[in-house]
């Protein structure tokens, strides 16, 4: 279920940026060749980034991609490592709630003033901002669930699980992922040749 949801979000993210690439390419070529501008590719690019970033924040949690310095962490006693892993997960949850809190005022102000974008389209900002805000809320929920899972492990004394599942990502792990992908690619390459 979780994996399917992530896949869905990642594909949504990818298709948005793929679509954006085609749109921007067409816009750039038209502008260069016919001096004609679609106007709006840049604006859409900004909205895509805002929403895409929030989706990315969430997806980076599961892969433990949010960077933590592990040089000292590795040398901590295991109890302290487990504590820091728990604290990190909880702090990301808190960060999610913080973003949802401070960005709420942005959305409220946009509604109050009925602001629209300073662009040729003059898009009412509430449209892109609502989607962006919804994505931020999704990130916060995701981060809080993650923190809850870490807390359950921490307070039920499942330290080992905490050390495995919430450890900062090491160069070794990243390397393993890349080596796996390389093996996969080589196989796919051989299939194409055959």
């Amino acid at each position, binding site marked *: 279920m979780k994996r399917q949801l992530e896949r869905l979000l990642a594909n949504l993210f*990818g298709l948005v940026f*793929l679509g954006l690439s085609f749109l921007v390419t067409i*816009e750039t070529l038209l502008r260069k060749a016919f001096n004609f501008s679609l106007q709006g590719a840049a604006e859409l690019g900004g909205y895509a*980034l805002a929403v895409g970033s929030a989706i990315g*924040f969430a997806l980076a949690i599961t892969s433990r*991609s949010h960077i933590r310095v592990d040089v000292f962490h590795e040398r901590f006693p295991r109890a302290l490592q487990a504590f820091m892993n728990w604290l990190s997960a909880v702090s990301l949850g808190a960060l999610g709630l913080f973003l949802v809190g401070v*960005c709420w*005022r942005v959305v409220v102000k946009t509604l109050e003033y009925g602001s629209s974008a300073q662009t040729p389209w003059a898009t009412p900002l509430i449209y892109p901002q609502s989607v*962006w805000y919804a994505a931020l809320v999704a990130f916060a929920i995701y981060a809080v669930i993650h923190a809850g899972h870490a807390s359950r492990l921490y307070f039920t004394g499942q330290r080992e699980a905490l050390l495995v599942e919430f450890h900062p990502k090491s160069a070794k792990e990243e390397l393993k992922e890349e*080596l796996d992908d390389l093996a996969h690619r080589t196989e796919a390459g051989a299939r194409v040749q055959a």
Partner: protein
Amino acid sequence: MSTLAFSLTFLLMILLMLLGLPIAVSMVLVGAGAGVIVFGVPFLSTTGAMLWGVLNDNLLTAAPLFILLGELLLRSGMADRMYGAMAAWLSRLPGGLLHTNIACCALFAATSGSSVATAATIGTVALPSLHQRKYPMPQALGTLAAGGTLGILIPPSINMIVYGSLTENSIGKLFIAGVIPGLLLTGLFMLFVLINSSLKGNVPREVLPPLAERLRLTVHLIPPIVIFGIVMGSLYTGVATATESAALGVVVALFFAWRAKRLSWSMLETCFLQTARTTGMIMLILAAAFVLNLLISLSGVAETMTKAVTALGPSATAMLLVLILFYLALGMFMDVMSMLVATVPITYPIVTALGVDPIWFGIFIILMCELALITPPVGMNLFVVQGVRPDRGGIGDVISGSLPFVAIMMAFTLLLMVFPAIVTWLPGKM
């Protein structure tokens, strides 16, 4: 906010980072915490508006697009075949395949944007045969570790996008500024291998394959070179912005992947997921850095510190030398991207007040990041290269093999200080 108070705040942030809290959390906690103490709750409402401004900035859309471009080149396997093609041309030089290591790492890292993927791919292809042909292992490992760092200097570079965004400098100019130093540093690395091998006389040269074979292999260099040409060409001539050039690159990469019959939905899904994760990681750190930036600009601490430093009367050169030591020390413990975002908001105003060119300083920072990638104890590339070696040597081999390249990078940084035009000439022509 006094300089002392800010310095303590900054130290607290570094401490939280070193304790192992997520980098983004450490920056937001300290930035927003100090902001609320100094300015009260209104600081938070400014923070919200600022966050929307940063996250919806189309200039930064270049970041996910370049990451996607790198993923497409990497996951479609297009970049994997570069080694054979490079080897066909370069391995005749004294030092043989070591030159191929450097050149290939430079090209691979520049296109894929990932030094881990570079070391994994090139290392897996190169190291077994280097081992078999009895190349000295430390040197072979050193060329791979050092070669992999060239990717963030040779555009497109996500680190440059982040620097450009934090300091409000043109990303296009930064990319163009990286070209000559990138090529020059690659050349210097190869020159070192050439001289070192000639002096020692124990490194085998390889036999040059026949011309027809060489040309056949060169086909594999076409996609990365065409894409690089389109991206940089459109930027340099002003046809496209950084974001637009990235979009052009993505479309052309899709075409090449389709031509090579490697465009599949599962490949795309991998690219999408990786791009989303990397984008999320970078954008969260960047957003956090902007919270810190907000504190620095509202509290006027940058001006205070700049005044304090300029009152001491150091020359720009002296300041840069101090910064080299500072970054060397910090780079020993911190991850490269974190080091960049946590320090640039402070060092940038000071250095530019002393008259250093903003674009030049960007390249300087990138060089400091490169150094951090191969200086122990946490130089990421050292561990990654160690992880792919086929024999059972210790990490000491990788470190000793990389040391000459550390020295070359340091000397190169000094060279850029003496001749800043190496960096500033090409972007000045735009």
